[in-house]
């Protein structure tokens, strides 16, 4: 199989696309304020509803419901693992860092120290048509953090 394809669909992405950590919206039970966001990519019909509970400035929990391609679903799964337990400001910083990589058309490699498993999505930035797939859950988190704040 072509190496380009394997660079795009790294094993970690294929695994997360099947396992989907955080899939299934959780009702809020503990303390904190809830933020929710629904994102839709009209080009392909991919969509996600993401719910965040922010408690004392920390991303206490994150859950989502979505349908879409391997890139978008794996991205939501990786995002869940990465963000839970982080300070809100740190989460926002990571979203910005991820966006910068995604928009770079392959010129900015992701820093694995910072982005962890999300660095596996670096290859996506060479495919402009797929960047939106990778960003879908991250934009949903960005919006839900704002909603939880208000």
């Amino acid at each position, binding site marked *: 199989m072509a190496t380009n394809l394997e660079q795009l669909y790294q094993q970690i992405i294929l695994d997360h696309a*099947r396992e989907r950590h955080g899939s299934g919206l959780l009702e809020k039970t503990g303390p904190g304020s809830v933020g929710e966001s629904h994102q839709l990519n009209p080009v*392909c019909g991919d969509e996600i509803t993401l719910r965040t509970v922010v408690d004392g400035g920390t991303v206490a929990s994150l859950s989502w419901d979505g349908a879409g*391609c391997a890139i978008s679903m794996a991205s939501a799964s990786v995002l869940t693992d990465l963000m839970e337990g982080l300070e809100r400001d740190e989460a926002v910083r990571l979203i910005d860092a991820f966006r910068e990589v995604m928009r770079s058309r392959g010129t900015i490699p992701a820093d694995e120290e910072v982005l962890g498993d999300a660095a596996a999505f670096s290859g996506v930035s060479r495919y402009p048509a797929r960047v939106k797939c990778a960003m879908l859950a991250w934009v949903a988190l960005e919006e839900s953090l704002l909603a939880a704040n208000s």
Partner: protein
Amino acid sequence: MAVVSPPVTLLPAEAPLANAEVLRIRNDFPILGTEVNGRPLVYLDSGATSQNPVSVLEAEQEFYEQRNAAVHRGAHTLAVEATDAYEAARAAVAGFINARPDELVWTSNATEAINLVAYAMSNAAAGRGGAQAERFRVGPGDTIVVTEMEHHANLIPWQELAARTGAELRFLPVDDEGALRLEGATGVITPATKILAFTHASNVLGTINPVAELVRLAKEVGALTLLDACQSVPHLPVDVKALDVDFLVLSGHKMLGPTGIGALYGRSELLNAMPPFLTGGSMITTVTMERAEYLPAPNRFEAGTQRISQAIALGAAANYLSETGMHRIEAWEGELGARLVEGLTAIEGIRVLGPRAGLPRIGLAAFDVAGVHAHDVGQFLDEQGIAVRVGHHCAQPLHRRLGLTATTRASTYLYNTTDEVDFFLEAVAGVRPFFGAR
């Protein structure tokens, strides 16, 4: 004396296309010789847009190099030549569907052609067009009927017309396999129906709809008919008189022509009774500061400077198709379509939409791959140089009806070979293993 075998072009027009001739046809299409991702391009997305033969590209270039002038105005030589070429193209495209030239209105695309009729009806509803526009008036109590398998282009203009006029939009449903359900049709197409708009061949299912039956139902209640022929005119012989429809829309870039050009066919008496949609220069006879008189069709619907080079190139495309022979193209694509469906059906985890193998379909197959999203399928195929369409193919309601959000679609044309179809099928068989789909 040397015995010279006759050139292939002297074969009788009825002889079916075969791979050998298709390989020759491919030489007329420069883009088909290119590579994608280091692989020879296998273009299976003609349902979205077709490729252009050299004769079409040259027609457009020749116009700009030798005849460029505004048409239907000016008395200089270039203007006369441009007008002649432009009207000859109209005659060629009209003749291609057995219409008269004055029954063919140029539009930017098929979408605009449908909007033209919808807005003309809206203008009639607002009182424009006088007594002769009565047939086009819609309002509360009237219905507009479409089918559940329509492309958004043949749905949203009617939703909007209904919303503007107070008419009700109704639809003929499809069954679980995507075939039109006509058993309850007389309850939907009623004397309140002003227009029935439906697709000839579905861009998702590949089904060819029963035009005669639907036209009969519409005529029984005095409703107008509009046929979306975007997926039929490029691929099979279409005769507007035999089909007996009131309106038909076609798309230039899906039939070897350039983008930016399409056409509306309308019965002469209807076009001349219909109020205009776009208004302005070139569609009038007498203009005062208060009002204007309009030219007869087709010019009354062609306001402003027209898509001259595109129309001329589309004329060349129609000629190319005619010379190849539409019956032969239809037969070849029927073969390719059958090969696609049989091959796809044999692959584990593939669900093909539309008619089962063995039933008629155009050279097009949309399918779902269990456990793999259509976008990922498309990406996988692209890596091997195969171009297909992924998504909802501008038919969200149909996908929803079939319980899907996105599918992958392979669509053929006269320039595709059986080898390409086989290569594609082999690639599709590799999709689920690559993604580890269970």
